[in-house]
């Protein structure tokens, strides 16, 4: 069970986060916070023509929350808003055990399914995804990507 939670790929993303850092403005910044454990994920996005043109993240917290953010950043870059929204739903369902993950389409992300047996850690795995969901909610209301 533990080995499922802390798979090599999770630890790798934790130790070597992809797309770590902040974007230069103009950008959308969305902060995510898990009050029950203090985990923090901050996403910087640049949208263009209905696509996530660039994305970076920073934050602090456990391996799960940070690895999950790293996987998110890696996987949604270049996707359309619609594709990103669909992916979010898929990942949330995966993590909650509602669907089985397809490694073909999800790649590294399937490793997040390991939290299923750790109810307390589900929120760590979903934090980044909920944060992106929140950011995209407002996507239509941005006229200038640099200012909220």
């Amino acid at each position, binding site marked *: 069970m533990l080995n499922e939670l802390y798979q090599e790929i999770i630890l790798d993303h934790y130790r070597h986060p992809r797309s770590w850092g902040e974007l230069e403005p103009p950008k959308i910044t969305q902060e995510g916070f898990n009050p*029950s454990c203090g985990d923090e994920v901050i996403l910087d996005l640049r949208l263009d023509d209905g696509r996530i043109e660039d994305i970076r993240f920073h934050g602090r917290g456990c391996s799960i929350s940070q690895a999950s953010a790293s996987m998110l950043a890696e996987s949604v870059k270049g996707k359309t808003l619609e594709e990103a929204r669909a992916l979010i739903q898929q990942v949330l369902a995966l993590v909650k055990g509602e669907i089985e993950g397809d490694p073909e389409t999800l790649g590294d992300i399937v490793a997040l399914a390991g939290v299923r047996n750790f109810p307390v850690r589900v929120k760590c795995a979903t934090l980044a995804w909920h944060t992106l969901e929140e950011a995209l909610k407002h996507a239509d209301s941005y006229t200038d990507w640099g200012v909220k």
Partner: protein
Amino acid sequence: MATTRLAIDAHEIRRQFPFFQPHPEMRSVIYLDNAATTQKPYAVIEAVSHFWAYQNANVHRGGHGAGAKASALYEAARECVAKFLNAREPAEIVFTRGTTEAINLVASSWGETFVRAGDEIIVTEMEHHANLLPWMRLAEKQGATLRVWRITDDGRLDLDALRALLTERTRLVAVVHISNVLGTVNPVAEICRIAHEAGARCLVDAAQSIAHMPVDVQAIDCDFLAFSGHKAYGPTGIGVLYAKRALLEEMPPYQVGGGMVRIVSWERRQWAEPPAKFEAGTPPIGEAVGLHAALDFIDSLGREAIAAYEHELTEYALRRLQEVPGLRLHGPVPDRAGIFAFTLEDIHPHDIATVLDTRDVAIRSGLHCAHPLGERLGGATARASLAVYNDTSHIDALVEALHTTRKVFGYA
């Protein structure tokens, strides 16, 4: 009285309470002091004991499974309260020590932020100190004016009198749902509507109504509502402040400490979201579990059924009390709740209570923490108050003991 017509069987209900079981160390008591505090069913006592024995851990900021489970139990209690009151969401429920703390919280946090010099606050003449002193103090502190909504001679509130008191400076109307002395059931939904029309907020003190009738915050449309666990078959140490989400958002914290803050550095602080923002420190966790069980107990009987049963019992009590010569009952008749404050001849209420106590009938005497109302009524009173486990035999015992009291004091 045809209790069989109703779903409530008080005798059966008393079997759910250890207090009413024969016990070698205790004399059995006819308990008519429910407005002060109610007895506790086994279900509540056992839920609390089980928590202390096997589920105990602190909430917030996990680390281990026991902590996560305790947090889940604590939040489940909040959800239960939210449903019980028909709040829009659990975040509108803040746990406090009781009604008194809930109202102090509002007076301090909301009041000191939104009530300014020259503003006005309306309180009724029948308020308990808990819904009076916080507003007196706030008014003094802010240079605001307290306006007293007087009661009618039969112990009711006149809505036209409220309309006459409301001005554009009125910030709040603070009103008790059921008076803990008069038994008056106030039309709080109408009061809120009238207050809102005048641009004022409305706080409802539901300490005496919560366990005795349906209380729906959306139907009432109050801005704030407060009650205590211990008057609703639950433990002491816990109570509830309901407030509309938007109000909680704009209110500053009340107490500050662990659990209500997101970030603290020497330079900056960022408060947590409501309701956590208003729950500094370790909350009453075991007590929340107990309150959850208490509300489940109430729901198992049904609040409509409880109200109907207590209504019939109240009618019976009114009839029987009126038979006692020299008994003067305060409050409206017949339309009222099961709280009976009275005097008997020239016998001091403490003496009435003492004589009744020797007959194992437990009532309360004094000013019932509503001194201004007490002055209006002419001083101390004896008070009997009902709960769902009482029945007509208890009223009979009360009346019998009142006759005894008359005799002891030399009345024929």
